Structures are given as structure tokens and as C-alpha cells.
């Protein structure tokens, strides 16, 4: 179509103005913020890897813990690795089923009533209770009566994990579409059966992934362990009785040591701990990607 007679074309380019500059500055600041956050992370990871990798080998992960003065190539952190694995595993076994059941209550039985709302709200609040308070709690209520043990540590970690698992499982259960439940009810199933055979399997991917993240957090917690396991240096395969040790506790003990050997072992333990947390995080993502049917 003809343009017609010559018309002065409209200039649609924005003249350089304070508005555009402000916008640009704002965007730049946002990018700076993101970089600002990546930098310390990079430094920490770099340091941990650099200082830890020279210490880590199979013997390091399995050898007994030497006195602090011992140089870096002597001994290792075997007992702490054992302790972390067994205590965290026990905490998971305690907290995850209870957490999932709690979420089941909130979602399937609670019906949005006042009790369910209070429990949901307090579960959220409970995620903010400092881990040290959990440690003091288990100390008061268990350790004073039954002594230090891996079990006590597992209780403390479990208290930390419980509200987190409840919340994340609750989110996942909410995502399961109502028609799925209705179809099961229509076939004459009871609520328990519907939940166990239809709802939980549908949400299992998300629940597992949420649980893995809770485990990752618990594995790295130190404060609850300080009051419950009495950080010793000998391995204790009996998680139910007797003092124990764990990676975070060992790191804490070594961090203030003036001996380079102890510090080196701390770095090695830190690298091990980060590796465990990282593996759990990757596993959680994998489960989310492959097995989660209903996502937000």
C-alpha cells in the first residue's frame, strides 16, 4: 500500500533521559547483587576444596581420630563419618514417617479446621526454632536421664527435620488433583486406603525430594549435637547408647585448635560434609525431575 505523500516520520527512539538511566542503574544493581552472592560462595567452596582435597583419601575417611597435635597425614575422621551416617540415618527414620503422617493429617483429615490451621501455622513457626534450642531441649528431656548417645542426637536432628518434612510433604500432597481421590472414593475405598494407595504414591516423588533436602540440612547441623552426643573421638557403632561423634561436631572442635594438623583434618571433614550435602541435593533434584508427577 502506498505510503502517500511525504510525512515527517515519527521519532520513536527515546531520547537519553534520566528515566532510562535510572532503569539501567537499577538493572545493574540487581546484577551486582547476584554476583555479590556468588563470590563468597565461590571463595568458600574453593577454599574447602583446595584445603580439603589434599587431606582426603580412603584412609582419611576410615582411620580413627588422632589427638589434635597430630600432623595432617596421621589418622583421619573415620569415627565422625560413621557417626554422621548413623545418627542422620536414625533421625531420618524417626522424622520422615512422622512428618509425612503429619502432612497427611493436615491435608486429608484436617479439613482446614481450626486444629489443622493451628498445627500448620505452628509447624511453620517451628521451622524457625534455632537448632541450638532443639539441642538444649533434648538435653533437658533425655540426656539428663539417659545420658549422651547417638539416639539423643538423632532425636534433636529429628525435631529439626520434622516441621520441614511436614511442610514440604504438605505442599506435595496439595498438588495431587482432587479427581484422583474422588475416583478412588467412588470405587468404595476408605480414606486411609485412598491416602495410602493413591495419594501418597502420586506425591511420592516430591515427598522424597523434600525429605532428601531436610536430611541434607540435618547432616550439617552442629549445635543440636553439642548437647546430645558429647563429641568424643572414638568410633561408636552403637548409635543407641554411648557418646558419639559426627562430622560437624568434629569440625567445630578442630576449628579453634591452633594445630595445623587438626585444622587440616577440619578442612577434610568440611569437604566430606559438603560432598554429602551436595550429593543429597543432586539426588533431590534428580528425584524431582524424574519421579515427580505434579509440580507447582
Amino acid at each position, binding site marked *: 500500500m502506498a505510503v502517500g505523500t511525504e510525512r515527517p516520520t515519527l521519532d520513536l527512539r527515546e531520547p537519553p533521559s534520566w528515566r532510562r538511566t535510572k532503569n539501567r542503574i537499577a538493572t545493574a544493581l540487581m546484577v551486582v*547483587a547476584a554476583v555479590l552472592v556468588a563470590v563468597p560462595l565461590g571463595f568458600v567452596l574453593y577454599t574447602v576444596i583446595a584445603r580439603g582435597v589434599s587431606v582426603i583419601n580412603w584412609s582419611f575417611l576410615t582411620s580413627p581420630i588422632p589427638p589434635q597435635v597430630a600432623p595432617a597425614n596421621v589418622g583421619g575422621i573415620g569415627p565422625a563419618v560413621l557417626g554422621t551416617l548413623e545418627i542422620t540415618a536414625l533421625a531420618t527414620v524417626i522424622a520422615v514417617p*512422622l512428618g509425612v503422617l503429619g502432612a497427611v493429617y493436615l491435608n486429608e483429615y484436617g479439613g482446614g479446621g481450626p486444629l489443622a490451621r493451628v498445627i500448620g501455622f505452628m509447624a511453620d513457626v517451628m521451622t524457625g526454632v*534455632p537448632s541450638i534450642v532443639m539441642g538444649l531441649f533434648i538435653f533437658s528431656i533425655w540426656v539428663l536421664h539417659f545420658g549422651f548417645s547417638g539416639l539423643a542426637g538423632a532425636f534433636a536432628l529429628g525435631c529439626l527435620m520434622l516441621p520441614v518434612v511436614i511442610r514440604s510433604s504438605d505442599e506435595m500432597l496439595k498438588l495431587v488433583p482432587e479427581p484422583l481421590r474422588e475416583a478412588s472414593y467412588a470405587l468404595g475405598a476408605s480414606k486411609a*486406603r485412598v491416602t495410602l494407595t493413591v495419594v501418597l504414591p502420586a506425591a511420592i516423588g516430591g515427598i522424597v525430594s523434600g525429605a532428601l533436602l531436610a536430611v541434607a540440612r540435618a547432616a550439617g547441623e552442629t549445635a543440636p549435637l553439642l548437647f546430645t552426643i558429647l563429641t568424643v573421638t572414638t568410633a561408636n557403632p552403637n548409635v543407641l547408647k554411648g557418646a558419639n561423634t559426627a562430622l560437624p561436631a568434629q569440625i567445630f572442635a578442630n576449628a579453634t585448635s591452633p594445630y595445623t594438623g587438626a585444622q587440616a583434618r577440619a578442612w577434610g571433614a568440611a569437604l566430606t560434609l559438603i560432598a554429602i550435602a551436595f550429593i543429597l541435593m543432586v539426588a533431590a533434584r534428580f528425584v524431582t525431575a524424574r519421579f515427580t508427577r505434579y509440580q507447582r
Partner: protein
Amino acid sequence: MSTVTQAGQAVPASALAQRRSLGDRGFQVLALAAGLLVLVILVLIAVSTTQQASSWFTTEGLSGIFSTTWNPAAGQFGALAFIYGTAISAGIAIVMAVPVSVAIALLLTEVVPRQWARPIVYVIDLLAVVPSVVWGLWGILVFAPWIAGFYSSIGSAVKGVPVLGALFGPPTSGASFFTAGIILAFMITPIVTSLSREVIATVPAIDKEGAYALGATRLEMIRGAVWPHSKGGIVGAVLLGLGRAMGETIAAALVIGSSATITSHLFAPGDSMPAVIANEFGEASGVFRAALMGLGVLLFIITIIINMIARGIVQRSARRQRGA
């Protein structure tokens, strides 16, 4: 009584009556018990720790909370220095972390295209997964010695200057309120960012489009459409970050300096409630231990209150969004 159908088959009415099997009822009870466990635990925490702290309350009384004298050897256990330290280090953390976190949340929701958002979220998640003790280890062995240099230069630069000198005056080692504040800032950034993101994501797209349609730049759109909607929720997110910063134990214990003093010098060593509990509990006994427990009770109460307020705010702003 039976009802007879067309084909002559009798269907006992009782067969249609609802029967809850033992298994069903048992499951429901189990689920309810698990839910109630949350409330039970919270109550037990309050009760048991307060009970353990009772001898501190009886010796020092409530004035113990406000006393600045902390001298375990002499049997004096005033808590104020630790409350101060907790507040200051958490405050520094918030001042540093909040602008950064909100900026990143805005970056992720408004600026970057979907593919770029994922690596950034990944970095944030990675930041969240670093355990507190590793932050502390890095803090005390690497960061504190390094930043001590900065403290010295700033300290000598502002010596004598009225306000700045008091705040940033001569430092000592690098373990200080400020160092703890920085490390805490790193640690709370992930949670404040992810909560802010959730809040900002609930801003209706149609409001954003309305602003753009008026010829607004992105910054203007954020100020006009996003901010009024997200204000409340972000305040909630900040409070949650504050609660987390106050309760964070191990990183603070390692880098705050363990010196129970109240001073305006941010670069000076100090102490905080969780830090002193972690550092001293092992060898403490009697009233000393009770005092540390008492600090734990204080910490519990403070963080519970902050969390309740924060969650209330976040829930209310989310509800308003859905209703609007």
C-alpha cells in the same frame, strides 16, 4: 430388615451401613498424633528448658536479663551483653542481606529470561546447603584474618570522627560483631531471596501489564505495580531472615570473638546468646549451666515471637492477593 430387589436378591440394609475398620481409624489416629506432635514438642521445649533454667531465674531474677555483668567465676550472670550481641550481629546481617536478596528476587522474577534464572537459583540453593559449621570454619581461619586488614585501615581512617569513629573504631583481630554479621548475611540470603521471590510471583501479571501499557520502564513498573503488592510479604520474609540470623549458632560462635562486652564498636569482638551457649555449655555446671539454659529460653521466646509475626504477615498478604 432387608430390601428386596427386582431379581429377588435380598440386600441387608446393614451391609450398606458405613463401617470404619480398625485399620482406618488407627491410621487417622496416627496421623492426628503426628500432627499434634508439633504442638507437643513446642510445649515441651518451653517447659523443660525453663525448668532447667530455674536456678538462674531464682538467683538473678528477671533483672538478670538486663544486667551487663557476666562473670561466671563470681556467680554473676547478666544476659544483656549477649542479647545486645545477638541483636547487633543479626541487625548487621539484615542490613546487608535484605537489599541484596530483594534485588536478586526482582532480578529472577522481572529481568532474566527463564533459562538464565535456573543457574542463578542453583547458586542460591548451593549457598543454602553450605553447613553453618563450614561457614564458621572458613570464617575463623580464612575470612577473619583477611578482613582484619580492612578493619585496621577503616579504623585508623575514621579515628576521631564523631559517629563513624565510635562505630568503626580501632579493631582487634577480625573476629567481631561485624564479621559475624557478614557471615550471617551470607547465610540468610537464600531464605530471604526465595521467600521474596514467592511473594513477588503472586503479583498479578495484569497489574504489571497495566504499568507497562502506560509506557513505564521496568523500574517504574516495579515501583508502581510490584512493590505495593509485595511490601507486606517482603517484610515477613525479612523478619524470618532476622529470626534465622538471631538463632544461627555455630558460625557466630566461631567468628564473633567471644567477648561479653557491650560496645558501639562494630569491629570489636563480642558475643551472642547462641554463641556463648555453644562455647561454654560443655564445662558449665550448676547456676552457670542454668544461666546458659536461661539464655536458650530467651532465644526460644524471641525467635518464636518473630516467627509468629512473620508467618502471620506472609499469610495475610498471600490471602489478600488471592482475594483481590
